[in-house]
């Protein structure tokens, strides 16, 4: 009887194990996909338009966020990338970049690590095409050519932090433990089948709702893994060492997605709701006669006292 029970339990365990491993978070490291040779090809690979049919609300929300135009930016990012090439890369003695034709993916990764992480799936031609497109866009703006400006802006914006960046490419952080993202799987909060020919599986990304997911880009400070470290964001550093260290416990997603009710329209300093969530301001005022000093004597002054309380999980401002 004990043997039968034991065998039954073993079967159940195996079935459970099989069920889990069918939709395990990640898998073995696979051969990287062929490199995209053009902006168009790279944009198509990560086109969030594929998700609209079933995830229209999330897509619409995302479309309003800066993630949907991460290279174009506010639009201050695209010109900054060109500045990084002209004032940074071309002036550094050992970067290997003297002209745009010398640019390679590795050079742009100091920006693209966060603004376009999928650039590592493209050829050096794409890196050069991106810079050429931004330059052409700037020229069209200068020339007052609105149609061309709009067309080029669309091309630049086609490269972005779309659905499959967060829900696949960077979804699994600890790859030795969780495995590598698989090309047929969408990572999120659920596992099971996914109604999509291209991505027929869903799997749980263990850190999808944790701050570390966002911390991959909204970072710790200098990205010391690069041959030439760069730095834009310090937010995750501030979150860890100044917020959590002082008792803070909320995650990026809790404030920027849930409490704000903005979902995938992840916003920051420009959004009224986020502003209201960020800082409490109190203003007190009074007046008095102040005996300032011997030279100036008694002076009538108004005193305004402003109290600011940072309710967020990071410094304000960052940069």
């Amino acid at each position, binding site marked *: 009887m004990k043997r039968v029970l034991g065998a039954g339990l073993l079967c159940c365990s195996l079935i459970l194990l099989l069920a889990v491993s069918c939709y395990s978070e990640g898998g073995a490291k696979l051969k990287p996909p062929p490199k995209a040779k053009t902006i168009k090809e790279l944009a198509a690979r990560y086109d969030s338009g594929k998700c609209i049919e079933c995830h229209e609300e999330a897509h619409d929300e995302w479309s309003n966020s800066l993630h949907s135009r991460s290279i174009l930016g506010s639009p201050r990012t695209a010109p900054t990338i060109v500045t990084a090439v002209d*004032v940074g890369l071309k002036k550094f003695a050992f970067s290997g970049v003297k002209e745009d034709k010398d640019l390679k993916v590795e050079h742009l990764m*100091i920006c693209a690590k966060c603004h376009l992480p999928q650039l590592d799936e493209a050829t050096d031609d794409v890196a050069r095409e991106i810079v050429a497109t931004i330059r052409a866009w700037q020229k069209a703006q200068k020339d007052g050519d609105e149609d061309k400006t709009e067309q080029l802006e669309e091309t630049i914006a086609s490269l972005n932090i779309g659905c499959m960046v967060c829900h696949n490419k960077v979804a699994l952080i600890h790859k030795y433990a969780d495995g590598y993202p698989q090309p047929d799987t969408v990572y999120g909060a659920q596992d099971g089948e996914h109604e999509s020919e291209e991505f027929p599986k869903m799997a749980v990304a263990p850190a999808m709702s944790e701050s570390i997911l966002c911390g991959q880009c909204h970072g710790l400070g200098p990205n010391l893994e690069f041959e030439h470290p760069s730095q834009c964001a310090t937010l995750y550093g501030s979150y860890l060492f100044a917020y959590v260290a002082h008792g803070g416990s909320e995650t990026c997603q809790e404030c920027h997605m849930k409490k704000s009710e903005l979902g995938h329209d992840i916003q920051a300093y420009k959004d009224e709701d986020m502003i209201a969530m960020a800082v409490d301001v109190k203003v007190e005022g009074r007046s008095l006669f102040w005996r300032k000093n011997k030279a100036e004597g008694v002076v009538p002054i108004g005193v305004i006292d402003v109290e600011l309380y940072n309710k967020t999980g990071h410094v304000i401002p960052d940069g």
Partner: protein
Amino acid sequence: MPFPARLGRGKEMGRGPYEKSGLLRETSLAPLARVHETFEITYPFAEVKKGSVTQRELVNDELKVTVKLLYLPFGEFDSYAVTWFEKEKNLDLKTEWIWH
């Protein structure tokens, strides 16, 4: 605001992401921090001669103060600046000015 060190060395602040590394100084509002900023505004007054004595008199005993908190994403009061808070405060000093 964070003052990133240029190439993470020396005392010069870096501006572009390709040269920013670390922090020289940080004046941002820290998370969960409460800070007070105090502003003193002098009421307009005049020196008025009364007989042999010169004394000070208020030109106006009311002040309308506008307190604005602006977020300057690129450090300039330009079109990118976002107003986070704005409040008008009325102050008055209607008591007698004894020590002129």
